[in-house]
């Protein structure tokens, strides 16, 4: 049987998710390479290809109209497209400027109108092309990516969690951030990470995005009443990773 052809692509992002892939160790990496052939991976390999590919892994947000044609070209020759990482899956932290209108002037000053500094409202990759699967998280969980690839290679549909992080805190018996006098977005955040942050005493920032159909009004109410956040902060808190999914998007 011939190996599945896999290619990695990156758009507007920090490229940290592909770094996570390099942390899997020799057993998993070499095992994976027994099953797949990496035909393009700009950060790791010189080769580039225009051939059809079985699985395209796309990292980064859709932030420039000029990237649309590149994304469409990938879609055209890929059998399966996986958006991996928060930037590709939900727009990620890049979308934290979506509600601002002065960001270009603020960052580039008198040079703001130079054409190469263009940046539009941030969208996930699905804003330009059809995406088949998403690996959520900022960064991704490397084991989840391996699980999804492995499922696809075995002809199985991977399960992408759609329950809130609160469930995973209960499963690992983490004391709730609200009980400790803090605040947290775990109640509306998509789980699958294993809830490491609240266990380390850090509020969940919903880096995997919202669960489907989150009750955003209730979220703001809980942040204000239980989390004791000022009204404005309660309303804006979830922008860090869910700006494209909020009601005001």
């Amino acid at each position, binding site marked *: 049987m011939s190996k599945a052809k896999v290619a990695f692509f990156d758009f507007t992002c920090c*490229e*940290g998710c592909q770094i996570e892939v*390099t*942390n899997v160790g020799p057993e998993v990496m070499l095992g994976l390479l027994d099953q797949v052939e990496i035909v393009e991976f*700009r950060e790791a390999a010189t080769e580039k290809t225009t051939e059809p590919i079985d699985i395209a892994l796309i990292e980064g947000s859709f932030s420039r109209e000029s990237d649309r044609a590149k994304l469409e070209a990938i879609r055209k020759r890929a059998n399966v497209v996986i958006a991996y990482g928060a930037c590709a899956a939900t727009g990620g932290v*890049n979308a*934290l400027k979506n509600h601002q209108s002065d960001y270009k002037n603020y960052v580039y000053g008198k040079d703001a109108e130079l054409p190469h500094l263009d940046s539009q409202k941030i969208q996930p990759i699905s804003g330009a092309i059809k995406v088949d699967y998403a690996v959520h998280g900022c960064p991704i969980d490397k084991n989840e990516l391996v699980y999804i690839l492995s499922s696809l290679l075995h002809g199985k549909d991977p399960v992408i969690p759609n329950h809130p992080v609160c469930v995973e805190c209960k499963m690992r018996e983490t004391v709730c951030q609200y009980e400790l006098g803090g605040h947290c977005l775990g109640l509306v955040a998509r789980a699958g990470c294993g809830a490491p942050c609240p266990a380390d005493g850090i509020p969940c920032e919903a880096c995997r995005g919202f669960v489907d159909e989150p009750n955003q009004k209730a979220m703001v109410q809980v942040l204000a009443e239980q989390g004791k956040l000022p009204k404005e902060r309660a309303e804006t808190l979830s922008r*860090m990773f869910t700006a494209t999914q909020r009601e005001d998007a």
Partner: protein
Amino acid sequence: MIQNADIQVNHLTRVEGHGNIVVNIGNGKVEKCEWQVPEAPRFFEAMIRGRHYSEVARITSRICGICAIGHTLASVKTTENALGMEISEQTFKLRQVLKHAENFDSHVLHALFLVSPDLVDATSVFKMIPTHGEVVKAALRLKRFSHEWGSLIGGRTTHPTKAIPGGFASLPTNQELKTLRDRFVKEALPDLDAILGVFVSLAPKIPAFTRETEYMGLHSDVEYGLYDGCVQTVMPDGTKEQWKVEDYLKCTNEYVVPQSTAKYAKNKLSSYMAGALARFNNNFDQLRPEAKLAAKALGMEPLVFNPYLNTAAQVVEVVHSTHATIALIDELLDAGIKDEEPVKPTKYGQGFGSTEVPRGILFHSYEYDKNYMCVGGNCIIPTNQNHGNIQDDFEKLVPELMQQKSKEKEMELALEMLVRAYDPCISCSTHYLDVKFVK
């Protein structure tokens, strides 16, 4: 001798982020020779406005997936400086351990995954598996090891969670630190010795090229400048000058060029270099003895003026970070880990912070209001500081290559290898602004 060439490398491979190389030569004359940066801009300085001090490092960490620990540390240091938070000795040492983990991790990735294929005529580390399988396995083991080392202290290595303003959200146990120390001895050191041997044998394949420039890095009295210190540069004649971190704009002097979404920087000369070689040239005396031996084996003593040897300086730093961390763990275990709460803000205003990331010196500055909400900020990233130096290298190197090489492809490879040697982190580098602090 090359009389005519038309080199256009779009989106150079095996570097972090997007960069182009353009060289046109006609009738023996260089018509164009440019290092271009087309990376999509991301506007981080605008995004931190209106965020609470506890959230700012979580945002700015996302500037870079490889230097995420460094960005987090520079960020929490800047916030602590602005809000009057004095960290404990234990926090200082744990952050040094975390910083070393990043340096080790990133250098292993760069030297072994991105650069070494060039030295064995392969196009990627994947293609080295049949010919250098044991090296690849050792590299993957070391990469995973440093990931676990950083994760123990920081929660993760890509966008660490536990390092927060004032200290740590949660601390490693004495037993976990002891286990890590044992793993250094049993797992990391043997692999590192093997890798060092391989790298020493490949070093003669690193191109010979010399251009004297200014080298900038952190300098500290208590460590080989990585986590903390003042700004220092060393000139080609060996003279050194220092600046306070809060005066960083005086020595970085950023400016805009038309071929780049990233700003360029300069200080006393037309450009300067940041990164492992700059640190090596500034702070060689403070390297661990084991690292000095590695430098000797690689034929390096300061000052080194060959930018291709930045990768070799990284290998020296990998050895340094290994032994420096073992010593830090011993000190931490001698004192015993104390359960410390992160310290709280005592004032508000403007703050400055700097740390060395793998590719060079990094500056953050923020301003906070009385509710500890961020009003604005600025980040100057090492790769920005290197763009001008890369361009100046190109201008000296291209005419030399025209004499030495006979094929355009050879020249192209030599230029690609030069950019790669800087270990550019271009996705970081497209964040800058003219600072306009509200007074």
